[in-house]
């Protein structure tokens, strides 16, 4: 399991050219039928540059060779390409809004509402949500579905591993969220590594899901999907939002990152109900 501390900063001076960038995408498509061509260029290029440095591969050809020949490496690559959430309880005001407004409304008319967290990477959002629900006494009345790109990511999240460099900001966020205790009640530090109490997510239903969002869960009441659409082009962004729309029940909610929008094409599917926290509601009229 990859629980090394990946907070280290990478040299900005190492850059790959646009042809190298396209070659990497082409090889992944040919070898694994995984299509990265609809990812936002600047971010993905930086992820490639980062991975080449992280694995000490020196240049693009060595990365391409490794991708072609090493299927296990490709799974690690998928985990590292994804950008993790920055910390737990990012945007404390959103979590307060969930606790004080949105979740009480959802639980009022639902015995066991389904909440979906698509494309989990490090589990920070998942554990934050679990803590909110536990403190509200509702964790056992919720069906949480977490979809992930592969088993490595699922194992990482299930292990409770919590990157040490995120703990300080997460503690501050939780204090601003004003939970019932302190965040440190939910994790332990062992040496350089922190581990969250994985019993918080023992009832979470994990599913593998590819980047095309095939086989998405249905009858979802709330989708928490923050700061992942920023890594896709407008086309893929719109296609994913349509899938999310189909997954939600009428009147279900979608939460995006504070600086993400559903955009022109998908604005007909969703109504903005909280602008500051980027909370949308599936339009019932449609």
């Amino acid at each position, binding site marked *: 399991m990859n629980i090394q501390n990946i907070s280290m900063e990478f040299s900005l001076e190492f850059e790959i050219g646009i042809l190298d960038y396209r070659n990497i995408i082409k090889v992944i498509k040919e070898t694994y039928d995984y299509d990265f061509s609809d990812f936002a260029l*600047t971010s993905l290029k930086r992820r490639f540059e980062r991975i080449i440095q992280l694995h000490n591969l020196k240049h693009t050809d060595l990365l391409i060779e490794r991708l072609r020949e090493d299927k296990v490496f490709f799974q690690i690559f998928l985990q590292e390409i994804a950008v993790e959430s920055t910390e737990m309880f990012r945007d404390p*005001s959103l979590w307060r809004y969930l606790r004080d407004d949105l979740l009480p409304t959802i639980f009022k008319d639902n015995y066991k509402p389904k909440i979906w967290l698509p494309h989990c990477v490090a589990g920070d959002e998942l554990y934050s949500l679990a803590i909110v629900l536990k403190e509200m006494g509702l964790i056992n009345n919720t069906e949480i579905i977490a979809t992930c790109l592969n088993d490595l990511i699922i194992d990482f999240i299930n292990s409770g591993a919590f990157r040490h460099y995120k703990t300080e900001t997460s503690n501050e966020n939780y204090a601003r969220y004003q939970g019932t205790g302190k965040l440190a009640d939910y994790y332990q530090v062992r040496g350089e590594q922190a581990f969250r109490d994985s019993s918080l997510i023992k009832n979470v239903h994990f599913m593998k899901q590819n980047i095309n969002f095939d086989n998405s869960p249905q009858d979802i009441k709330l989708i928490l999907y923050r700061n992942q659409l920023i890594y896709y082009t407008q086309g893929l962004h719109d296609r994913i939002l349509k899938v999310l729309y189909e997954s939600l029940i009428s009147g279900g909610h979608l939460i995006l990152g*504070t600086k*993400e929008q559903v955009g022109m094409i998908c604005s007909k599917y969703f109504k903005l109900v909280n602008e500051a926290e980027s909370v949308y509601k599936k339009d019932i009229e449609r």
Partner: protein
Amino acid sequence: MYKAIMIGGSAGSFQVVANILNALPSDFDMPVFLCLHRLKHVRSGFVEALSLKSNIPVVEPYDKEPIKSGKAYLAPANYHMFIELGNRFALSTEEPVHHSRPSIDLSFITAAQAYRNKLIGIILSGANKDGAYGLKKVAEMGGHTIVQDPAYCDVKTMTEASLQIAHVDQVLSPDKIVDFLNKFK
């Protein structure tokens, strides 16, 4: 001749940025990008403070928002702000650079790649060397580089780091920076 202005700063830069925005005319014909170090958890207030005396609208861009002339764009809290090809913003929550998110280096590098020799890059007062490498890239792409005269900076770390590694076209006092930008009215 130039198509965009990218300004970076941290400690001690707020007043200089406010003065620049106050001096630019309402029909200013370029986008002005502002990447300023700021607290991660404080999302509101900064745009409002900069807007008070600005003659052009100051906004924090959304991801994928198209770039327009005559607007100032402030990098949002806890996001990196990239200038993406296709005249749009792209935001990112990737790892901090020099402990900073937004990172001035990343905003400058992506703007340098997008605008090449049509970019003016300006580094102001700041307590971190984030920005120095970005300014170097602006110069390498043929853009025009300006550094606030360290003698006029509250904190000199950022400007001195920039002067060390980047080719800098002009070292100017805050007033002279304003005069220089006003030539593009």
